[in-house]
């Protein structure tokens, strides 16, 4: 057995049996200052690598959206420190390194100085196949002392659809080129034959191949810096402290949880969906111990399926930890310690930890939903302890458009316009959510400029703005998402589709009495008269407009219009076909009729709330011309809303009894029936609690009691 494989096993044993990574922090205690000084140098090495890589990279996702991260790892593959950026890879590179060691790469493949290993198999490490990892070993005095690694998201993988995230994939074999832990360079030289292979199998090989160079440049920088530091501080010191940094983080994680979270058991559920016919259940039970021990149990997750929304264990861990860092461990060291300090249960055989590598994994909505339920639970634990300013209502799953074909320059291309950093955040406990400025997977959100995207894709924007009222209504409203409207230009050889599928249900719940964020959707109008309208100087569609049920794209254009919810596979498009897309938005916080009327007025002035919403939802009397608020009338309107609620309301016991009757009679839509059938079958724990709570007979399954003719094939 390889020496490092033994080390991996030993560390796992230590974590399992003693709940610690190192028994003591000897070097920290000996000289806490030197301990810190070395760490700041290590952190800078990864930050510098990320900056260089972003400059070499060609991928618009890296340059425009900052989807790039670098890290330094111990010899056995645990993260010591990470740069900023795509933080969900804190642990995915770790998984990759450990996988190579556990699969005997030391002995059977060989690991030498100057080697660079590539991986985009999300079952090994990474989140989906466009996330491409490169790691290189760091040797000092002939000994492998660590690894430097980098990840970039490359928006084209040669999959069945362009852009790397094929919405129509039903197995991983539709998802393009997957290279599992392949040595792509040795003695610092990139293997030419492998580049030829890539260049003939993806639609935009320049991105893949230039990004490889970017990652190699970054990894090399980290490696060289670490070697200098080892020479300065000594190999023994480096080897010991690199482990102590992880143990130090484990301890800090517990201290933080203990100091800011109210102990207890918190639960939340998010529902994601696939097309119109399948719901995915993502529940979380978060426990905060009195000693600060955090446990997160995802028992009750749905089964995987023949769709693109299965997520691997590394992906789920990665996305979840990304959310954890942003909202709890932001002031800690960014390394494996936080993960090891938490007890995380992501049951095997579920949509977030499939039983084998068959399942397609492109779309990350289930794993993003783990972050969403985490926010829900965490916000309440913060709130209970008095940290209201840390509350962050559930946020959103992101969506995007992908297209490929021949671009406006006559070149082959495949790419996506992700704009995915332009979701609205959940509301904060003391103020509104951010409009169009967030994505869970990268806290440094950047949607890029339209001019840059138009240079890459054969599209012309007609409108790119804040979708009014898409954030959940509340005392503090959720952030609104983006709405984008564009048409195809300068090519008739292209196909266009959408990834990021959800049912017309809400994933980003509101909290403390607020509304959820809006669902996402797209409209497409093909064979339009747009060109003629332009020639006649007629009004054109730019937004959804004041009447969301009759959007401008439908009112102002003639053509074949289609409203789509959820994902859809790429279809041929031609010039002047028009596409409208919304992105996710956040849940609200608190009762909307407690919202400061001046905030409502400001939103109307900014055109992010429709006039028709003001009275109906917020109970605010606003003059539509002067935008003056009438406080007296507002008071009366709000009193009337309260009265109306009291009339509609029923006691909780009565409500539960009614719902129980529905369960017993099988009065559920088919998708809800399928959802509960599935999780009651695969999770005995969930099934037990479910049946106990609703007082259902042993072995209860909705489909057993349903009249299979119950209408509602979709929600």
């Amino acid at each position, binding site marked *: 057995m390889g020496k490092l494989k033994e080390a991996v096993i030993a560390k796992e044993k230590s974590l399992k049996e003693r709940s610690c990574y190192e028994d003591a922090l000897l070097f920290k205690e000996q000289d*806490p*200052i030197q*301990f*810190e*000084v070395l760490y*700041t140098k290590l952190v*800078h090495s990864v930050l510098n690598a990320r*900056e*260089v890589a972003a*400059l*070499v990279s*060609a991928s618009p996702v890296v340059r425009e959206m900052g989807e790039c991260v670098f890290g330094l790892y111990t010899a056995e593959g645990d993260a010591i420190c990470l740069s900023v950026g795509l*933080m969900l890879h804190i642990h995915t590179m770790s998984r990759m390194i450990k996988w190579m060691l556990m699969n005997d790469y030391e002995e059977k493949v060989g690991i030498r100085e100057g080697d660079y290993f590539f991986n985009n198999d999300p079952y090994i490490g990474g989140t989906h196949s466009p996330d491409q990892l490169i790691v290189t070993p760091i040797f000092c005095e002939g000994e492998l002392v660590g690894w430097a690694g980098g990840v970039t998201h490359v928006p084209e993988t040669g999959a069945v659809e362009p852009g790397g995230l094929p919405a129509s994939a039903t197995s991983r074999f539709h998802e393009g080129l997957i290279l599992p832990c392949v040595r792509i360079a040795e003695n*610092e030289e990139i293997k030419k034959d492998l580049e030829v292979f890539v260049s003939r199998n993806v639609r935009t090989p*320049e991105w893949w191949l*230039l990004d490889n*160079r970017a990652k190699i*440049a970054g990894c*090399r920088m980290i490696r060289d810096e670490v070697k200098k530091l080892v020479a300065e501080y000594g190999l023994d010191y480096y080897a010991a402290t690199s482990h102590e940094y992880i143990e130090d983080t484990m301890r*800090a994680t517990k*201290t933080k949880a203990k*100091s800011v979270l109210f102990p207890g058991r918190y639960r939340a559920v998010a529902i994601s969906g696939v097309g119109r016919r399948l719901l995915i259940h993502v529940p979380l039970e978060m426990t905060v111990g009195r000693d600060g021990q955090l446990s997160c149990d995802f028992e009750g997750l749905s089964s995987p399926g023949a769709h693109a929304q299965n997520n691997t264990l590394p992906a789920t861990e990665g996305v979840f930890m990304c959310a954890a*860092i*942003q*909202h709890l461990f*932001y*002031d*800690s060291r960014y390394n494996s310690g936080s993960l090891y300090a938490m007890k995380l249960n992501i049951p095997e055989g579920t949509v977030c930890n499939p039983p084998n590598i068959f399942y397609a994994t492109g779309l990350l909505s289930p794993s993003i939903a783990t972050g969403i339920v985490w926010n829900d639970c965490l916000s309440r634990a913060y709130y209970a302890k008095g940290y209201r*300013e*840390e509350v*962050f209502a559930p946020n959103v799953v992101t969506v995007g458009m992908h297209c490929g074909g021949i671009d406006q320059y006559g070149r082959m291309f495949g790419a996506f316009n992700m704009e995915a950093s*332009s979701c609205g*955040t959940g509301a904060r406990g003391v103020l509104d959510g*951010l*409009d169009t*400025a*967030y994505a869970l997977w990268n*806290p*440094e*959100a*950047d*949607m890029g*400029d*339209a*001019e*840059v995207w*138009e240079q890459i894709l054969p599209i*012309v*924007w*007609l409108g*790119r*703005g*804040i979708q009014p009222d898409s954030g959940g209504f509340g005392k503090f409203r959720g952030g609104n998402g983006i709405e984008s409207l564009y048409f195809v230009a*300068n090519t008739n050889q292209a196909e266009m589709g959408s990834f990021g599928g959800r049912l017309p249900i809400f994933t980003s719940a509101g909290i403390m009495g607020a509304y959820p964020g809006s669902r996402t959707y797209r409209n497409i109008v093909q064979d339009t008269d747009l060109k003629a309208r*332009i020639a006649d*100087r007629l009004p054109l569609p730019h*937004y959804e407009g004041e009447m969301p049920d009759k959007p401008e794209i439908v009112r102002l254009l003639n053509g074949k219009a289609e409203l789509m919810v959820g994902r859809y596979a790429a279809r041929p498009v031609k010039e002047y076909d028009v596409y409208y897309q919304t992105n996710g938005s956040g849940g609200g916080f608190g009762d909307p009729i407690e919202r400061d009327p001046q905030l409502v007025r400001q939103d109307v*002035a*900014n*055109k992010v709330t429709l006039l028709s919403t003001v009275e109906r939802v917020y109970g605010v009397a606003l003059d539509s011309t002067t935008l003056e608020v009438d406080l007296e009338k507002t008071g009366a309107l709000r009193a009337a809303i309260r009265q109306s609620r009291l009339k509609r309301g029923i006691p909780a016991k009565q409500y539960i009894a009614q719902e129980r009757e529905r369960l017993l009679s099988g009065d559920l839509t088919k998708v809800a029936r399928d959802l509960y059938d599935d999780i009651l079958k695969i999770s005995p724990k969930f099934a037990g609690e479910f049946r106990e709570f609703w007082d259902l007979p042993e072995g209860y399954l909705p489909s057993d009691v349903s009249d299979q003719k119950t209408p509602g094939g979709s929600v």
Partner: protein
Amino acid sequence: MDESATERQFFCYIDTGGTFTDSFVVDENGRYIIGKAPSTPGNIAEGFFNSIESAVARLGISPGSFLSQLRILGYGTTLVLNALLTRTGKQPGLIITRGFEGLLLMERAKQTWTEYERIDRMHVVTHRHLDPLVPRGLIHGVTERIDCLGQPIIPLYEHEVREAARALIAKGVDAIVISFLWSFLQDAHERRAGALVREELAAAGKDLPVYLSVDVSPVMRELSRTNATVIEAYTAPLLKNAIEGVQRRLGEFGFRSSLQLMQSSGGLASAEHVKAVETVQSGPVGGLMGGRFIGELYGIPNIITTDAGGTSFDVGLVTSGSININREPVCARMILGVPVAEIISIGAGGGTIAGIDQLTGRLEVGPASAGAVPGPVCYDAGGTQPTVTDADLALGYLNPDYFIGGRIRLNKAKAEEAIRKQIAEPIGLSVVEAAAGIKRIIDAKMRNTIYGLVAARGLEISDYSLLSFGGAGPPHVAGYTADLPLRGVMMFPYSAAFSAFGAATADHEHHYTKALNMVVPPFAADEKKLELGEQLNRVWANLEQQALRQMELEGFDTDRITLRFLAMVRYGRQLNDLVVTSPVRRVATTGDWDALISAFEKLYDDRYARAARYPEAGFEIFEVGLIATGEKVKPKLEPRPLAGREPRAAARKGTRPAYFDGQMMPTAIYELGALEPGNVVPGPAIVEDPTTTFVVPPARHVEIDQYFTLWLK
């Protein structure tokens, strides 16, 4: 300077900061004096002249006599930046491509966290949108579209422009900004809209300025371009007003020469030809200019400048004699499409606060600062948290009776007590060990910033020398350069004046850019190269004409103008380009084309290593540029005769214990003003001056050369 000053020629640079207006006067021999007066925000001219008066009073001549002899008066002002930070500019309205009215509210997402510290970038709940300079109600969309190929794919709906103009005029805006997508590539729509707006203004009997984005910031990226244009409209009238006030007063004193403004890119240009937005970051560039000047003086092409003050540590680069230009800088949390000299700033200085993190028990230093008020604990002015200055005092580096020449008496006991309670006891160290820890950590942060600026651009630190200035730099320069393989470490005496000195050395300079759309296929045929070269030549020729016209207006003869032709080149489908100084002024042959591409690939190799090359992807040139430099008289530093290596007795101030190598040891103290060129000060030593304190560790020494530069060896 002596009484015979009346017959000499002077150069003067004035810097109006938020608190003080500094003036720097240098004679043709390079000797200089400094003036200082409080800034007068209500009437800038007043502080300006008070500052000049305070300087020339020391020359024994009247301001009038002095000003009539001035060849060039350079002026740096933070007026534009202050107006942005305090939101006190004019109120423009904005006409934008319809569908993009939300641009300033959306902020490309990035502006919600840009300029945040790393922890807050992670901590999403802290992210905030800015209040836009143009409220949504003053933004009107008009239908039009240019596509990425420069084609007018949707014509300008002229009636909408007129409606928008009328609406904005009715709302009482102070100016109208027009910003359309891709206008930098094809400006027809913007220019036509500008003409229509002017017609409507004339019809309404209004005389308001109209700003086109293509005129202010002709570069790609709609947010950066629109931000820059809006800032121009927001601040240009303020700057114009201030400059006119100054010029009136100058005229009264007989000043007949050119008043030149410092631009953020590091060049001076005649005040009437400078855009307000191009001065927004001009404050810190003086030091960088000074670094370049010192580099030229010593024949050192690559210099890192470090400027440490009370709250921030600024690092800049001079590479091959040129300063790095950031073409997409962030200022006041807005991304701007104007060239700015690249300077990285972190929260690290004398006032930086140290404390123990409650979660990890680790010692953290910065980025928060105690500022000037209440300042460090040792100022005894209400500060309670220990700072870097407190640590420096506890370590014996600072003289409690000679801080800022004795103007602030430092309370050492109080500083030590704060360190003991808040740092030393919680982590089990002695006071001196804790103070040394603060110093090590702040030194490491400074070191990492320097290293990062160089390494993250793919450059080699061993190719650079470092120049330290700013009051809080010299106590730490030995620490933050200790493990950097620099070619040399210089400390400039009279640090406080260095920025003003540097500004006086700046060139008269203008930057021009023009977008184009050039996709170069891999391994292009000769005909293709010549065709593309011709396209390039046309754009360069236009820029050249534009530059020569402007420089001529500013009084420069053609033979006093240097032109540098630039092409922003990248590999096919990359999004970052490199600014390549073309080896040829025109592409006449395929050899010329190849020379341009080779220059790009060489630069690329230097930055990212040869292995990162990818010519198989072809090349792209989406922007070209031109830098026009006018020859200008600069101050000179004259060498002084060298005295012996041994400092004279008058320079010695005795000894005091200071902390080195883990212990307090007797350390020789010197007075900088009494040292002479040629002297060598062996470590451990401390060299004191009213403006700063140089710390020389054991086994190192300082050599003072003929220009009175201190070399840390």
